[in-house]
């Protein structure tokens, strides 16, 4: 017989403050159909992490957890071969009749998960590279590199 859950009010408040944003991020990274599972899995891991009670910037920690969850999922799903691999994995399939902005979804699929995260935080969240660096736990130089490469790929895909 299961006991009543011991819900931490602090966790509930934190989650409520970031849930919509996290689902939006997961939608951009993995598509609408996979977003809920990605957020569920990421948040479950965060709550189970012994580091969680000590985290100060909880919003950024949750952001990184969602990005890592999507990234790990793709790594596990990829086929590993010993041969040369030139094409980045594509996360979603596009249905032009059902998906909104199918050309953007297709273009995003050409990016790595980290590049998608940087693009999302740049264009949807309107964060500066410095703020994105803090959010994702990267150096600002890495963020700028990801953004430059992502833009080059997006220009090509959207041409």
């Amino acid at each position: 017989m299961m006991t009543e859950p011991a819900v931490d009010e602090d966790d509930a408040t934190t989650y409520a403050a970031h849930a919509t944003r996290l689902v939006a991020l997961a939608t951009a990274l993995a598509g609408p159909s996979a977003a809920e599972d990605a957020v569920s899995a990421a948040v479950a891991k965060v709550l189970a992490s012994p580091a969680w009670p000590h985290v100060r910037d909880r919003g950024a920690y949750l952001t990184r957890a969602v990005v890592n969850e999507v990234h790990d999922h793709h790594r596990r799903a990829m086929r590993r071969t010993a041969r040369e691999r030139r094409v980045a994995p594509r996360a979603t399939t596009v249905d032009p009749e059902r998906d909104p902005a199918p050309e953007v979804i297709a273009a995003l699929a050409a990016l790595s998960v980290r590049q998608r995260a940087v693009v999302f935080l740049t264009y949807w969240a309107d964060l500066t590279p410095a703020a994105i660096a803090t959010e994702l736990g990267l150096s600002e130089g890495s963020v700028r590199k990801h953004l430059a490469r992502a833009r080059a790929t997006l220009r090509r895909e959207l041409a």
Partner: protein
Amino acid sequence: MTHDDELDDLDQRMRAGLAALVAEAPDPPALPAAAPSASAGPRLRLLAAAAVVAVGALAAGAIVLAGSDGRAHVTTDPTTATPPPDRPLAGTDWLLQEATVDGEPITIEPERVPFLYVTPEGTVSLYDGCNHGGGEVDVGPEPGSLRFEAGPVTAMGCGAARGELAHVSVAIGTGLRGPTTYAIDGDELTIEADGVVLRWQASDELFTPTDDEVLVQDELHGVPFRVTWTADEDGYGMELQRRAGESQPQGGTGVGVALDDPASNLMKVDARGDALLFGLVPSTAASATYAPEGGEPQPIELRALDGRDPGFWGVLEVVDGSQRWEVVAYDAQGVEVDRLRWGPRG
């Protein structure tokens, strides 16, 4: 359209496209409710639901994660499911997942995830997020104890320019020095020492994750290696990762070439003498050869990067870094257009 106009157009399209995509986002899932775990057992705590929703036949050991909203998420009940077997310390690739110092989490840069590999003989291969190193480790004598002895390590500077990276390498240096305690739970390894807690995850990947494009992934002399490359506004960078071989720890090296110096070429040598050839040749080059000093020239493949001029030398193989090398590039008529030599000094 100018470059700035192109960027503005791209920015507008991405903003509009992402807004449309996010508008289709689902409602946030219910918050998983967590109960404290009684031991340091499985990382996933037992999760309870406010209301159980029938989901049909559940696999053995499955429980409902959340149900009061009518949605059911099935996960594994750690108290009934068969736990995964413990991975061995030796022969397993361990990737760092979390690092804390006195409870304070340390940033791990996704592109520079530290890894740890121990051979059955106790030889250590380590990448701390900045430098590669080796060493030895002894297990015991007390259960759950380890003693590390550091060996040769590269001396790359990875300071403030890389954010908190320096803290990760410091945390690892503290955690893997002298006597430590360790515990393996399934595919997770925890190492603790002097207030540092390092949590590693077993990986079945041959090499550490990267977002850079893979140029070559193959074997040389029975040792798997991988070369990745990346480009930015300033030039190109290539990185070699090599698995542990006989009497050689796992390791890697990297090179960078600046666009404003198209004749530049670099060969990097890691602590064990491996090296890779990389450089730029004029766009008039149609073929090229490489040879050790006094040796027989071998053809080398020219590869174009993003259609840019000039072309560049692809990696033919990992070479002996103790030798001096020469590369000669020829145009379509067989006339020499470039000749480059490099190798260890002295």
